């Protein structure tokens, strides 16, 4: 049987989702799939397009997992355009002369920006806002400009205005209608949005009909001429005046086109040709097309299901949206303008805080028809579920939008009231039923749910709701959500941290007597030891603390498999002088230490016997080294690239900042180890986005990423704040460090912490940047105290006679451990294996080495 030949034209967000869904549901070995991708790169996230300006890497926006197409044998024709279709012979012709046969064809050609017929709108200072190439061109123009205007005050137009503002030019928004975002907001909501945006320095001009753009002006390169005879001089113009379905190829192939444009499709996403599907913005269902990504995703699923013979149908789309435009939160649900006959409204308006909320309900007051939220979208998730699932409203619908201080208790939506079919995550179309199934399957944390269902990994707006569903399902299953530290403490790490800090507890016995029971164990002892180190900064080997220290802290070195230790001095930012390097080499020679460059831009000496550690460190400290804390749950290092001092591409001094950061935070004990990275330009040679804290230089300052990780489960850090000056950056890092120390679970890296933090990086930003919890001053003060308390643990140790006694191998003999044996390897040495040490032994059950 020959394989079914499937051709997909278009590799945008919807075209790619189609392929992902296909891979999920079908056996790709039975298919021969070819994809046309007109742009020079595979599918990327157009929704977050403007973040390109802060990241500057197209990879960041890519939607395609590395190797996805190769792995599934999907052929992608990059930069190649389908120029004609012969429907009779079922052939697609490409711009390079290629001819490809198909059995089934999927058109996902998207849309194109529509620019009104304005004289002069084709001059070199006029742009549209659609692709990464467009953004590159806008950025190039902004560099030589003082001012720019966005024509179009809709969703995308305001997004573009935000980008212009971020590029540092004087920004204008020109809107034809009397209000902004007329599609999504009512008049009052639009007005409030306008006020907020204007306060940010963006100039808004409504009811303006642009007639002409003249390529001349007194203060700028262009003059915009409006119908009311007013004028505006700006250097460049970005058009965001709507989109039209890209149906040119379909028209040419004589497929049926809808009256207002777009390839006409039925409920199965089939066009007038039963072998051709159309999905996404190029398709028109019921004579309307959808300029949002969620309906396109739904169409992709329907088309895949139809191809495979599964039941599914496209039944229209919910056009609700929640976004953040120029920092203003905006939400729109259903009939936002209250056009339903006899509908009623409930309105809450707070000019002081710039909040406007309106509910539109049915005549009988029982159902929610629509909602407008400006300035505060916390209620969006609940309201959307009420609307989508047609749930009866509470007796007093206004309680749904009133603030807590108004006294009325917000009716708990309760995840229980949602049907299993309720879509919780619309980015990935994850229903409540799917999450419930994952919970029943044993996935009981937010991070696990995200990893297995993808829910909450798109825009993240549904995370609070996922949390509610998760907790409700766990409660239903009778799983007690127990975050107790261990059998000795009925508190979470976070709770215990606060008790220790507030009550000033300084020994494990005090903590155990007051808040725990029994003797303690390998979980609570190091956890309490770490908390006390984070709170008070006392030496970890102090008599009341030494019994709490886990393996590596116990003798200030990482224990290796044979009981010897590694010695890793600090090399801040990876810097080391040649002279110091010489001393390191001498010490390594003298004590016969295996020497290796570590993954953290420093040098590790291995195989040191415990009783040699103090003298080894004495020599290193005399040469100017200090402890590198490679053994501690603490900041390990700041990895840096060479930066602007030497590198011809660098824009900031990354080594300088890295050295400073490492020295500032060294020694502070954290819930788990931490790694920093600082890159001097967007090339990111320090791989900072894979670190707990990543700093990347921009022309204007520093971008701060948090929660990255390498290791077992790599994660790119989330951008917390952009273009920071150094003083602000340090403040944010202080707060980030202390907030993590205070609230993380035991041995929880920042990546997992952030994944589990309700509200994710947006919440973290509220705390760190906007001081949502009002604790920032205290966080900074706590960090300052720890920084002032820093002293090198090894310097303190070698100067303390009592401590030194602990390092002998035997308490009653000067002999050494005769079980530590080395064999030569690659001009150095390694620990001997069991059979090397015991050539005659047959080996016990644990150490049999099988003959090959």
């Amino acid at each position, binding site marked *: 049987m020959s394989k079914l030949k499937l051709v997909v034209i278009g590799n945008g967000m919807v075209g790619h989702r189609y392929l992902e869904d296909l891979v999920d549901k079908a056996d790709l070995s039975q298919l021969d799939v070819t994809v046309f991708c007109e742009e020079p790169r595979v599918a990327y996230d157009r929704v977050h397009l403007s973040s390109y300006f802060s990241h500057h890497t197209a990879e960041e926006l890519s939607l395609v997992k590395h190797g996805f197409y190769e792995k599934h044998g999907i052929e992608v024709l990059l930069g190649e355009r389908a120029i004609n279709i012969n429907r009779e012979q079922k052939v697609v012709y490409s711009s390079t002369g290629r001819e490809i046969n198909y059995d089934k064809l999927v058109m996902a050609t998207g849309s194109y920006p529509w620019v009104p017929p304005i004289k002069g709108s084709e001059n070199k200072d006029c742009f549209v806002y659609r692709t990464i190439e467009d953004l590159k061109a806008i950025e190039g123009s902004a560099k030589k400009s003082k001012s720019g205007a966005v024509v179009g005050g809709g969703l995308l137009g305001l997004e573009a205005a935000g980008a212009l503002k971020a590029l540092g030019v004087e920004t204008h928004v020109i809107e034809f209608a009397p209000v902004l975002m007329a599609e999504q907001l009512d008049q009052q909501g639009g007005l409030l949005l306008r006020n907020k945006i204007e306060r940010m320095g963006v100039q808004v001009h409504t009811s303006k009909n642009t007639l002409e753009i003249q390529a001349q002006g007194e203060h700028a390169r262009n003059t915009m001429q409006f119908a009311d005879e007013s004028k505006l001089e700006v250097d460049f113009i970005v058009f965001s005046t709507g989109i039209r379905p890209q149906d040119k190829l379909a028209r040419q192939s004589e497929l049926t086109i809808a009256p207002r444009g777009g390839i006409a499709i039925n409920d199965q996403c089939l066009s007038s040709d039963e072998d051709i599907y159309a999905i996404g913005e190029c398709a028109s269902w019921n004579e309307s097309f959808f300029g949002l990504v969620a309906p396109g995703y739904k169409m992709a699923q329907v088309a895949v299901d139809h191809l495979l013979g599964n039941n599914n149908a496209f039944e229209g789309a919910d056009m609700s949206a929640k976004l953040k435009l120029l920092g203003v939160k905006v939400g729109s649900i259903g009939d936002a303008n209250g056009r339903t006959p006899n509908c009623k409204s409930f309105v809450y308006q707070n000019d002081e805080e710039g909040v406007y909320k309106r509910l539109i309900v049915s005549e009988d007051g029982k159902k929610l028809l629509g909602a407008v939220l400006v300035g505060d979208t916390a209620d969006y998730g609940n309201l959307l579920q009420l609307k989508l699932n047609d749930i009866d409203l509470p007796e007093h619908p206004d309680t749904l939008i009133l603030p807590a201080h108004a006294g009325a208790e917000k009716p708990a939506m309760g995840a229980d009231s949602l049907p299993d079919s309720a879509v919780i995550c619309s980015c990935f179309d994850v229903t409540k039923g799917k999450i419930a199934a994952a919970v029943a399957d044993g996935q009981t944390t937010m991070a696990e749910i995200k990893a297995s269902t993808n829910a909450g990994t798109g825009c993240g707006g549904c995370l609070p709701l996922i949390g509610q569903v998760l907790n409700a399902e766990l409660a239903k299953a009778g799983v007690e959500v127990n975050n107790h530290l261990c*059998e*000795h403490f009925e508190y979470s790490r976070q709770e215990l941290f606060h008790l220790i800090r507030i009550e000033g507890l300084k020994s*494990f016995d005090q903590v155990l007597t007051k808040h725990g029971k*029994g*003797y*303690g*164990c*390998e979980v609570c*002892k*190091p956890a309490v030891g770490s908390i006390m180190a984070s709170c008070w900064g006392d030496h970890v080997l102090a*008599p009341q603390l*030494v*019994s*709490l220290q*886990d*393996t590596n802290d*116990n*003798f200030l070195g990482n*224990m290796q*498999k*044979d*009981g010897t230790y590694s010695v890793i001095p600090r090399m801040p930012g990876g810097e080391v002088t040649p002279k110091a390097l010489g001393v390191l080499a001498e010490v390594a020679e003298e004590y016969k230490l295996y020497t290796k460059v570590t993954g953290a831009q420093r040098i590790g000496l291995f195989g040191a016997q415990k009783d040699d550690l103090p003298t080894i460190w004495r020599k290193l400290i005399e040469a100017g080294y200090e402890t590198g804390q490679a053994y501690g749950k603490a900041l390990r290092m700041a990895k840096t690239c060479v930066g602007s001092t030497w590198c011809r591409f660098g824009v900031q001094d990354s080594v300088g900042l890295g050295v400073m950061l490492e020295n500032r935070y060294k020694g502070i004990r954290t819930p788990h180890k931490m790694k920093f990275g600082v890159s001097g330009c967007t090339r990111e040679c320090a791989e900072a986005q894979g670190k707990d804290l990543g700093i990347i230089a921009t022309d204007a300052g520093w971008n701060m990423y948090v929660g990255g990780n390498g290791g077992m489960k790599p994660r790119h850090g989330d951008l917390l704040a952009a273009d920071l000056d150094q003083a602000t950056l340090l403040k944010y890092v202080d707060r980030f460090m202390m907030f993590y120390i205070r609230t993380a679970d035991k041995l929880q890296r920042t990546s997992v912490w952030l994944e589990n933090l309700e509200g994710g990086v947006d919440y973290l930003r509220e705390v760190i940047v906007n001081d949502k919890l009002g604790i920032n001053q205290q966080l900074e003060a706590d960090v300052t105290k720890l920084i002032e308390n820093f002293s090198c643990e090894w310097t303190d140790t070698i100067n303390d006679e009592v401590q030194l*006694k*602990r390092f002998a*191998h*035997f*308490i*009653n*003999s000067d*002999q050494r*451990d005769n*079980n530590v044996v080395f064999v030569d390897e690659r001009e150095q040495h390694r620990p001997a294996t*069991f059979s090397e*040490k015991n050539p005659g032994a047959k080996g*016990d*059950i*644990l*150490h049999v080495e099988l003959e090959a």
Partner: protein
Amino acid sequence: MSFETVCKLHDITPGTGICALVNGAQVALFRPRDDEQVFAINNMDPFAQSNVLSRGLIVEHQGQLWVASPLKKQRFNLTSGECLENPTVSVASYPVKVSAGKVAVSA
């Protein structure tokens, strides 16, 4: 049974262990609290075949005291030497006497 004095009681910081050489054997001694109770088991971690148990954390589970190996955290009973994770594995345990502030072991 002959006991050999290996150290003073206060040589062992409460809550920690030390290692002593007794008749050629490496003995790990533990003093869980600030009192005269001291336990002794063999110092070798049978899983890694390394002499490290004296450097482990003293822990309590099932109402008994154990030492968690500093390498991979298997726990060994301070009284019997039995391994909590795998009862077929155990280490030797030794009698200890504490008198007049001195610690003696028979091994």
